[in-house]
């Protein structure tokens, strides 16, 4: 019963004060973290973040098709094909699941392979006709090769071409390729502006103001509908 043994109404004060001191320290950390927000300006300044024409790699000596594939005739007579740098900048990290097997015969414009990212697909069509000699098996385990080194380690097939001269005649080479890439980039920006209006994601994520530069790996932020539209506009040329 009360009044017959010791009570201390301030018994917990020590614990409370220690807790409050801990709280004050945590508050500083918490407050600092809560005001961190990646600013728009920062996005511009990210070193790899800006997709401008000067970023693109366009090695000389390769033929570039309008479907954003490249092809190169080696001394051995075999031609390597792969996807170009602009395409890999636009899509970001992708995977290749299915590859044709050696010995298969393909024609120009046939499906070479499909690249995939988070359930979104793009179909890559062959720039030349011929027989598949070899497919790059490394790509299954290391798909980043497509992005890091699309022209060498990231090759997709070695093909024995059947009609090299005729088919590559209409492709871009050297300085023409550079000009064309720059124009493609602009065309992509316009394409985006149109798609944005349809899809309406947050515009600041992808592009900055009118006339602004694009964020790298632009398509990776955009949904399936845009990928489909991109496929039609940029990868489905039949020439």
């Amino acid at each position: 019963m009360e009044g017959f043994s010791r009570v201390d109404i301030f018994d917990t004060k020590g614990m409370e004060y220690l807790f409050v001191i801990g709280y004050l320290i945590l508050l500083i950390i918490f407050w600092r973290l809560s005001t961190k927000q990646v600013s728009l300006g920062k996005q511009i300044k990210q070193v790899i973040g800006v997709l401008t024409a000067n970023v693109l790699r366009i090695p000389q000596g390769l033929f570039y098709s309008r479907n954003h594939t490249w092809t190169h005739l080696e001394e051995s007579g075999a031609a390597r094909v792969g996807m170009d740098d602009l395409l890999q900048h636009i899509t970001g990290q992708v995977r290749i699941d299915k590859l044709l097997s050696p010995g298969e015969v393909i024609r120009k414009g046939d499906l070479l392979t499909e690249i995939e990212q988070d359930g979104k697909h793009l179909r890559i069509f062959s720039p030349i006709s011929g027989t598949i000699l070899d497919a790059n098996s490394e790509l299954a385990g290391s798909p980043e090769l497509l992005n890091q080194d699309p022209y060498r380690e990231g090759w997709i097939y070695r093909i024995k071409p059947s009609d090299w001269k005729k088919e590559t005649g209409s492709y871009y080479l050297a300085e023409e390729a550079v000009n064309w890439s720059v124009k493609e980039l602009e065309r992509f920006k316009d394409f985006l502006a149109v798609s944005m209006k349809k899809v309406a994601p947050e515009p600041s994520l992808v592009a900055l103001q009118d006339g602004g530069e694009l964020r790298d790996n632009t398509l990776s932020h955009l949904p399936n509908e845009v990928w489909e539209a991109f496929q039609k506009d940029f990868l489905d040329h039949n020439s």
Partner: protein
Amino acid sequence: MGIDRRGFLKTIGVAGAALTVGKSFASSPETTTKSDTEFYGILYDSTLCEGCQSCEFACAEKYELPFPTEAPVPDVIKKTSDTQRVVINTFNTSKGEQFIRTSCNHCNEPACASACLTKAMYKTAEGPVIWRADKCMGCRSCMISCPFDMPKFEYNNPNPKIQKCRMCYEQMKNGEKPACVDVCPPEALLFGKRRDLIEIARTRIYSEPEKYHHAIYGEHEVGGTGLLTIASVPFEELGMRKDLGTTSYPEYNKTFLYSVPAVLVLWPAFLLGLNNSFLERKKRIKQEKEDNS
């Protein structure tokens, strides 16, 4: 006496049993600690006191203080001091000359112990409120807080002590009684568990209702004290204050002390938010100015 020893023991037995059962139904607030040891106390029966001052002499001898030199004078109030821990005063009351003992009341929840920032004033689990020399820094907060003004300070000592009854705490732990209780010739002082002393006091009052004033001073005053007094006249006639209330004095600090952690939590968060909103406003105004210029 209106009650004999057998009756006395019977009452104690029944009372004790009843109270033990009652204890299990008591609830304790979550913010308090409880111990299993029960308080001891002293019961002072003013009707038995003869004013012989034996208690004063015994206390002075034990604690090496000077022996008191004056006998109590009616209606002249003598207070405890830095050389005297217990005093007997006398008053001319409606029932003639009555004596009253003044010393530390050993409150259940002492104001002095609550005010002491070094825990030099300490409420022991056994009941006595003791002063511990090794911790005291002489701030005298205990003197400000005590409603009875009991702690006395040695102002003329470069290494000052606080002088106050300590219910002979060391002796109590060895099973002995306090010096004053031991020596009292008419047995006006009784030492025991506070619970039992209240029962005894009530028994005395109920047994002889004309002899006693029907109250125990210290049963509820300031939340209950260890020194209990019963007298034949109302306590005001004996110079004791009745306006001290029944709340324990540390409760007066409760609101303030309980809100300290809350302020330390809320104020920084609120101020941070306020600061942030003012800074944003400033930025926005500056931005607008630049845009317009």
